[in-house]
């Protein structure tokens, strides 16, 4: 028990929670935006992998960190375009198309990485984002190192969650996106082009997914290695349901997840030899399944999710 208390009382845990949460926040927002317009986006896992690789590669080749982030976002957007082509224009199964995008983006990422970065004993590294020193806040005992010693992309992710919440709730564009996800025929009857809205949402959402991946290599770690995304994309998809398609709740959900993940990471060494570490690693996955089971029926699913839209076909 005292171990658990020590962990909870350490600023390091809370700093880690925010760090672990960041890619989940970005990825969940991306998937959420896409789903709000009616398109399930299972390309997320692959796009995160590609974003992690390409962002890192850009920086490795001399770009600055923000350029790396931007490159990852653009690459994500490109895969988003592909997913939109398949699911919106062609109206193919969103499940299968998304898995196809994931398989392609991930294997393409490994291919490019291997092509451009020679095999080496230890993977090459870059200098990642450093924690920001916020005058007046970072210096506060405990709270400073716990909550105000993050890298810039973490704050960006939190801001984006708030911005996306505002966009969906309060702006004409947000209304258009929501209506497209609820009933694209209704949107069209109001003079909105559902195809354009879906394209936009999928592409923008994919850019967020690319950024989520880039955070892993440009901030959380400093190198790229295959399988580093480790199902985070799928957890994001679960978090969207858990958040009932609301950005604010997505932020909270990601933080909650990260909290458990952070705690288990710190419990591992304490219980080493008593409990196999794999059991701890299972926790986030099992939690996301439990979250789905608890929320699936309660959540207000966008009514047109996974329904292709073709003009004139009802």
């Amino acid at each position, binding site marked *: 028990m005292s171990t658990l208390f020590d962990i909870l009382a350490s600023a390091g845990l809370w700093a880690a929670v925010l760090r672990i949460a960041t890619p989940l926040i970005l990825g969940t927002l991306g998937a959420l935006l896409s789903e709000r317009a009616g398109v399930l986006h*299972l390309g997320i896992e692959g796009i995160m992998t590609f974003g992690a690789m390409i962002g890192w590669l850009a920086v490795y080749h001399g770009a600055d960190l923000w350029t790396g982030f931007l490159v990852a976002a653009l690459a994500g957007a490109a895969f988003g375009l*592909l997913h939109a082509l*398949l699911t919106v224009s*062609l*109206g*193919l*199964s969103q*499940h*299968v*198309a998304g*898995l*196809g*995008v994931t*398989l*392609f983006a*991930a*294997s*393409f990422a*490994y*291919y490019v990485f*291997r*092509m451009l970065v020679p095999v080496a004993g230890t993977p090459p590294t870059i200098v990642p984002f450093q924690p920001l020193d916020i005058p007046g806040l970072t210096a506060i005992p405990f709270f400073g190192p716990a909550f105000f010693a993050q890298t810039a992309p973490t704050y960006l992710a939190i801001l984006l969650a708030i911005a996306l919440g505002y966009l969906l709730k309060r702006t004409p564009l947000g209304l258009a996106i929501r209506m497209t996800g609820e009933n694209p025929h209704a949107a069209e009857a109001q003079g909105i082009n559902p195809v354009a809205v879906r394209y936009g949402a999928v592409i923008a959402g994919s850019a967020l997914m690319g950024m989520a991946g880039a955070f892993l290599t440009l901030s959380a770690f400093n190198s790229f290695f295959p399988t580093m995304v*480790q*199902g985070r994309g*799928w*957890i994001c*998809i*679960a978090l969207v*349901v858990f958040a009932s398609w609301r950005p604010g709740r997505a932020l909270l959900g990601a933080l909650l997840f990260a909290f458990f993940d952070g705690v288990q990471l710190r419990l591992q060494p304490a219980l080493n030899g008593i409990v*196999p570490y*794999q*059991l701890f*690693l*299972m926790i986030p*996955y*099992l939690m*996301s*399944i439990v979250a*789905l*089971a608890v929320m*699936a*029926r309660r959540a207000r699913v966008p009514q047109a999710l996974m329904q292709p839209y*073709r*003009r004139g076909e009802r």
Partner: protein
Amino acid sequence: MRFERRDHRPLALVIATSVLAVIAALALSGILIALAGAPVLEAYRRILIGAFGSRLSTTETLTRTAPLMLTGLAAAVAFRARLWNIGAEGQLYLGAITVAAASSHLLGGLPSAVQIPLLLLLGAMAGMVLLLVPLWLRLRFQVDEVVTTLILNFVALLFVSMLIDTVLKDPTAFGWPQSQSVADAAMLPKLLARSRLHIGILVAAALAILIHLVQSRTVFGLQSRAAGLNPAGAVFAGVPLGATLVKVACLSGGLAGLAGAIEVMGVKGYVTTDLSPGYGYSGIVVAMLAGLNPLGVVLAALFSAIMFVGADGMSRALRIPSYIADVTVALSLLTMLVALFFTQYRIRR
């Protein structure tokens, strides 16, 4: 431009679709090969040589075909009933570890004739159990099984990793996390001496034919097809939706579990966490390429195996990352989807 649904889909068109999709995928990955600075046609030639150039490579390709056929069948039977089982990878591992555990601790003393069928059955059952969990969640809580089966892949792999690190660890493996080996009597007979080719491929092919018959001739086949095409219509016609899906899940999970069992009993004899190079995920591609037809799965699995084995040889010769095989297989899923679209719809203006 509009798309209009085709009324008829001739068989020749369906077959042409798959062939076209594969050619398109190869052409696209040709661009990537060229980008890496290698001669494209030479690369294709090397892939064929890598896959069939010698007795060793040919048997290796066929050895790889077996698990791909089984995971492909697992996806095909599930998708047909609109059960999105993306968890074949995890089911495969669970099947594998079950076989390793059972043979090394319980059944190792039994003669082959008894032990092998028993182990295959146990492996299949392990796969079933892992798929029944997400199915139960879907039927009980309406949880989309795509996400749960995907996530369970990671759980299953961690579970296997835990077992081979602890209770099932092979003490003679110099500290490597590796399971204890199955008994010699549990190893599948070889099809060819001095090769790794075992009877697994025959088992898989026989199952493909059997499943084809089940789907086209039996009440269960008709009902599961109805359940997939139109659940509301199926319910109205008295198809027990839940029970049908449970049967489909048993079949699908069982096939994936069997893939793991056969891989252990046919090739390695023990389990590590790199037993499968993504057979479960490739199975999805195989199933789609086959148009969800069990007989088509045989050919689609062979194509994937050629890519994987051939690309290994090619990458060594031309210094192209062997990941090109994964890229090509993934691309063929995407091109197949597009091609399928054009066989179902025709363009008008």
